[in-house]
């Protein structure tokens, strides 16, 4: 028996925070690749502390639905899950974006725990960002004539969060698909407030590298970019700002292809997922006009 536990932040205040976690868990449940799939949260239940005991399987794959390697993935989750042997070096990620997985015993259950790196720094995440751009523009070929801005939180508590943004920016730039790809941040330079200044193209797709929609992605960023004066009134997609058309995508974590990254993390840690990835990809294929 093998179980998948998807761990995420959750919220005491915002009921939508857990929605992407539930959605991706359900997509993976539907593939039947795991005997059990369970969600666990820092701020909701089951807690990180008690998640492992809620599954019956002896092999457990833990995949953090977090954007970067850092405070939560390196300190909070292993500590709360009682992975006493945890050593960040076991992930082999010296650059902060190359975490793999490591295997431990947890102190409160008799199970083998495969602790995987966060979804946010997996290379497939670049594809999810591109897919998000396709979804928001409704154009599966989107790229030529478009700029792409990837928005991060900034260094505040965790310098690795910026590394994840730069990592995907670089990778997508190398794809040569968009006219321009830039990293912007909420609380450091280059700031998302000035996003239009960084692009020559008229059209700019803006994708926040966030797991869930919340105050940052639904209130701060749209207001900071000048897409709306009052978030309560919503924002247009696309919206006109300084002679640019801004296609604001909302949190990348809500994109259904994210489930694929979760699966990929577990598979790389040794989970037997059969053809589950193909099934997720089919399920989350963008609906193309005329199809």
């Amino acid at each position, binding site marked *: 028996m093998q179980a998948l536990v998807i761990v995420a932040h959750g919220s005491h205040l915002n*009921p939508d925070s857990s929605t992407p976690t539930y959605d991706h868990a359900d997509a993976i*449940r539907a593939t039947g690749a795991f005997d059990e799939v369970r969600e666990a949260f820092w*701020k*909701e239940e089951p807690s990180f502390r008690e998640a492992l005991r809620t599954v*019956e399987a002896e092999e457990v794959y833990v995949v953090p639905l977090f954007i970067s390697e850092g405070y939560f993935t390196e300190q909070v989750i292993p500590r709360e899950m009682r992975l006493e042997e945890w050593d960040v070096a076991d992930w082999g990620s010296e650059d902060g974006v190359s975490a793999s997985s490591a295997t431990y015993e947890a102190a409160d259950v008799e199970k083998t725990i495969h602790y995987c790196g966060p979804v946010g720094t997996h290379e497939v995440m670049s594809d999810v960002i591109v897919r998000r751009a396709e979804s928001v523009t409704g154009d599966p070929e989107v790229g030529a004539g478009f700029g792409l801005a990837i928005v991060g939180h900034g260094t505040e508590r965790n310098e690795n969060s910026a590394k994840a943004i730069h990592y995907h920016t670089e990778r997508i730039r190398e794809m040569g698909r968009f006219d321009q790809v830039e990293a912007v941040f909420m609380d450091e330079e280059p700031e998302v407030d000035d996003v239009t200044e960084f692009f020559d193209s008229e059209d700019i797709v803006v994708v926040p590298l966030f797991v869930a929609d919340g105050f940052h992605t639904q209130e701060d960023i749209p207001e900071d970019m000048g897409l709306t004066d009052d978030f309560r009134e919503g924002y247009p997609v696309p919206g006109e700002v300084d002679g640019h058309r801004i296609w604001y995508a909302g949190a990348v974590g809500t994109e259904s292809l994210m489930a694929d990254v979760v699966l990929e993390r577990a598979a790389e840690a040794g989970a037997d997922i059969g053809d589950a990835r193909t099934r997720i990809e089919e399920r989350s294929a963008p609906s193309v006009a005329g199809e």
Partner: protein
Amino acid sequence: MNDAQVEALVEAAEEGVEIDGLRIAQERSGYRFETPERTHEGLSGSELRTAAEESPWFVSNWHYWTHVVGGPESARHEYLRWVEGADDHAVPERYEALSTGLTREWGQLSITATLADDGVRRYDLRHVADGDRAEEDLETHVDPLDARRIATYDDDGRYRPLSTAPTLRTGWVYPDLDGRALVETVEFLYPATVENWNRERRGELDITHFRETAERQTGIYSIVEGLSVEELEAAAEACCVDSQCLKRRMWDEDEETPLDVPRGEEAFPCREPCSLLVTAARKFVTLGREETRSYEFELTPTEKEQIEGIIDAVADGRVGEIREADLNDGANRYRARYLRALRGGEHGLSNTPTYPEDHD
């Protein structure tokens, strides 16, 4: 009972069977078949079959627990047995009760076990407040995953960050769950309660007391270590008593220092301060950093009591129940507005500045 169950039982007899008063053993003289009502010895295989057929409830009961539920050591297995009181009631008595439905409560959940064909149990799960309501009057669910959404908002549409707060929404029913789906659904509504309940019954509940939890915190929560025992008691009184959270609080300040706050009455334990309690504790620590001061207020005795009544109304979640024109209730909106208009001033209550030194 059906033929396949009897066959399976005869096959299992070689290894020996013992469950809920049914005992089958292979002895030198043949099989021994025993229920509380009868004992047969020296049976051949076909005689064993006949004996089994004469005790159909014992056969289907054995089959249900070993073949349908399985996982003999699992919390799921133990929980399903608890639901029908399997350890306390003999098979015939239990089957009589199951035929009309045997109901247990788990927090605000009401679980009714019944018998379907061949002794297989089915379970009806709903809010206790919907106990007698007809299925047609309730929103019907079959998928355990729906339970996450049932648990998200209370009856007034407010988000429920704590799953075991006694504010579970009413008006829904799972009329026909099998055992596995029942436990899954309960675990979506009240995560980890079944497992922790089972650990406690086995004497293996791993309690983490407040000091240990506090010590482990990092980042913005590392300050919760600073909570005094008095403040911790107030915090448990604020968050953990049954009117706020149905889990039975088993943690204390530390192993030696029990908190003088009721633990609660429910079956399922709380083994460690939860994230909500830790977040609240963080706020309480910062509140505790302020020194008290003396203020002078000019209030009538009734006004003083009115203010206390308003605090109670908010603390007890009673505000929404106060009738619009109930002017006898000090927490009534008109009464509160009148008090503010009369006694509030530029500097707040009784026009007494919060920081008088700023106004000298």
